């Protein structure tokens, strides 16, 4: 049942309000109580954006987790106790079934903690039956359990009992007469008190540019956004909250590097030291990410093998987990270093010098629009050339090169997305994504099959008595990866043709007119 919530004015007199409600029927007052609520979500608010709320409710005696629909407060599922950090660790059942596809690899993190002092009363009918629950709630909010100190507006919740709608209607009317104002949800109150906005922390959110903007300013804006993504994912990466923090961090580094190298002649000469530092960042984050990918893929690896062979992969999993922990510790040390702190702060200073176009080469003062057309067009033609040259005899290296070309094209399209009509650009990005998936899978299977052999060698070095069954199971896995690599290879021609469809080619060739059209409409 959906509750109706009201904010109490700061000087509200609870006794007077209760007295007014007593006119609707007998009121049964319950002992005062305390409740701690912890609202959980992923770093990028996946549950919030899926109209969901996951909240752990703790009284001094027990805890339970409830999953509610955010808009209606309807209960979707409940679980005794607190909930695990990852959806895959939740006991099998409806809660896990529905959370897993939403959260994927993302961890559940506390987004707001609320301590409430509750005064409850029940409105009774003439049989003594409860027909409505009234709850006065006052309290504080905090970002973490240890810092719950921001005061929240006091609220009155009217929770109806199924089958007794009249009691709710009368109570809502009365709340209106008492001049109580309809309240936003408790989470909204808490986030407002914490000055914590709900943002979809996405590396993909396009940065807003205009065609006339100077190239220098456009580049700075894109790089500022990438720097922001690095900064916001840094703490989560160091703490290894989930693998996505590092992934997003790395993507932002890669995008930054791509922009620095592809547009090198538009930057001041001072940029070269940053280029080296970002290269270093790419290198130090690589090994942990590789191990993360193995661990994320592990359930899929198991599915590749027969039931009887699966248990024999356990030593591989333990080895990967230990290596990941080791690499993660090393990574956290590097990310906590003075070198990174200095890099991020100097990089910020460099990007903030809005009026320093004078320090930039002459070319960077020209508008970004035509340059974006040319650069995307050039990258596109390169993909077309390389893709058309690939046939059944091409070596894997040729597909790898094409994968890199596609990635560059994709970055350019996403950097300059706001200059073009969203519908057409969306279509082209989608078409490219399809091809990238094929090339990405091909590359992943190739690299993983190769690296698994190396991992196997390392495992045997550490433990010369490694069971033969484990070696056989890893061998079978490598074989399956080869088979899947071949399947992707066979699919390539079809996926490339789909990307190179005449309609897409036309769109790519008319980028400048598309951009002009967008400018006219806006």
């Amino acid at each position, binding site marked *: *049942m959906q509750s109706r919530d009201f904010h109490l004015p700061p000087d509200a007199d609870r006794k007077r309000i209760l007295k007014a409600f007593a006119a609707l029927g007998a009121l049964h007052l319950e002992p005062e109580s305390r409740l701690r609520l912890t609202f959980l979500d992923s770093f990028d608010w996946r549950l919030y954006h899926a109209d969901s709320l996951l909240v752990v409710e703790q009284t001094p005696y027990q805890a*339970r987790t409830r999953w509610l629909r955010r808009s209606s407060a309807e209960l979707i599922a*409940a*679980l*005794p106790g607190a909930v695990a950090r990852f959806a895959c660790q939740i006991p099998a059942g409806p809660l896990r079934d529905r959370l897993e596809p939403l959260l994927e690899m993302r961890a559940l993190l506390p987004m707001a903690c609320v301590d409430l002092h509750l005064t409850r009363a*029940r409105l009774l009918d003439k*049989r*003594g*039956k*409860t027909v409505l629950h009234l709850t006065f709630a006052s309290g504080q909010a905090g970002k973490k359990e240890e810092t719950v100190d921001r005061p929240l507006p006091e609220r009155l919740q009217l929770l109806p*009992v*199924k*089958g*007794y709608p009249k009691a709710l209607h009368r109570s809502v009317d009365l709340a209106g007469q008492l001049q109580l104002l309809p309240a936003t949800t408790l989470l909204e109150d808490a986030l407002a008190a914490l000055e914590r906005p709900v943002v979809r922390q996405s590396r993909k959110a396009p940065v807003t540019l205009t065609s006339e903007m100077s190239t220098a300013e456009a580049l700075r804006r894109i790089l500022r956004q990438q720097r922001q993504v690095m900064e916001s994912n840094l703490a989560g990466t160091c703490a290894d909250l989930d693998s996505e923090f590092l992934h997003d961090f790395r993507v932002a580094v890669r995008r930054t590097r791509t922009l620095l190298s592809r547009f090198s002649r538009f930057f001041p000469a001072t940029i070269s030291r940053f280029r080296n530092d970002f290269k270093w960042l790419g290198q130090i984050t690589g090994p942990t990410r590789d191990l993360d990918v193995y661990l994320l893929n592990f359930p899929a690896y198991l599915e590749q093998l027969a039931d009887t062979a699966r248990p024999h992969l356990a030593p591989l999993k333990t080895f990967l987990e230990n290596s990941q922990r080791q690499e993660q510790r090393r990574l956290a040390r590097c990310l906590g270093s003075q070198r990174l702190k200095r890099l991020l702060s100097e990089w910020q200073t460099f990007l903030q010098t809005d009026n320093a176009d004078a320090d930039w080469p002459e070319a960077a003062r020209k508008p970004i629009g035509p340059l974006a057309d040319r650069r995307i067009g050039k990258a596109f033609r390169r993909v077309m050339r390389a893709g058309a040259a690939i046939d059944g005899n091409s070596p894997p290296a040729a597909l790898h090169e094409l994968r890199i070309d596609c990635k560059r094209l994709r970055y350019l399209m996403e950097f300059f997305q706001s200059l073009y009509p969203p519908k057409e650009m969306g279509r082209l990005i989608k078409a490219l994504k399809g091809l990238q998936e094929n090339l990405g899978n091909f590359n992943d299977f190739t690299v993983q099959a190769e690296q698994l052999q190396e991992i196997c060698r390392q495992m045997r070095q550490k433990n010369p008595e490694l069971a033969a069954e484990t070696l056989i199971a890893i061998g079978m896995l490598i074989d399956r990866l080869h088979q899947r690599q071949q399947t992707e290879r066979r699919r390539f021609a079809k996926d490339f043709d789909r990307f190179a469809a005449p309609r897409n080619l036309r769109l790519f060739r008319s980028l400048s007119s598309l951009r002009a059209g967008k400018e006219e409409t806006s």
Partner: protein
Amino acid sequence: MTVLATYNIKGGVGKTATAVNLAYLAARSGQPTLVWDLDPQGAATFYFRVKPKIKGGSKALLDGKQELDSLIRGTDFEHLDLLPADFSYRHLDLRLDDRKHPTRQLRKLLKPLLASYRYIFLDCPPSISLVSEAVFTAADALLVPIIPTTLSLRTLQQLIDFRSRQQLDRLQLLPFFSMVDRRKALHRQLVDELPEQFRDLLRTEIPYASDVERMGVHRAPLASFAGRSRPGLAYETLWEEIRRKTGEDV
């Protein structure tokens, strides 16, 4: 969803107390639970302080004129709802008899509620009638309270025979001793000897206790006012045993 019916051919054996107390325990663990009071006496409805009335009576209910969901009332307890009794249920047999496939009617009515509730308890009137047969078709298991007396055991045997005659093998029979007074020699003797005769008999016994009778004074389930009492704890053990037997605790 699991449909559990508290049933005995004989009256006054603790059917309603069982339905109300077990439903309360199920709801307390966070599982959405419904009690359908099918007994025109409306004892379960009385315990939950709800008006024993449904709009249009049993005729409107069976005709589908009233959606079951609109007749459901929330109780004073979280996750626990009630479909109240109505005096017209005394003619439910006749109403069922008027319809095609009378024994399938209750199952059909319950269908729309499957998604909303984890447990549905049917509190049945005593006797063996068309209503009982419809309950047997709708339920996954029958919880059969038996007082350790000769007559009670006779009715249990009648029920077992009826089940095999009607080929209701799908229906799980879960008899258990209720209102056991260990001061009485006959109760002691039957409770000790009977498990060998009836293999499906549950091990938990509900003692005869004034706390159970006081449910009528409090108008609430036992665990809400005397959860640590002897019968209160016995109902908890019974619920755990039933969940094990029905494969619910996996």
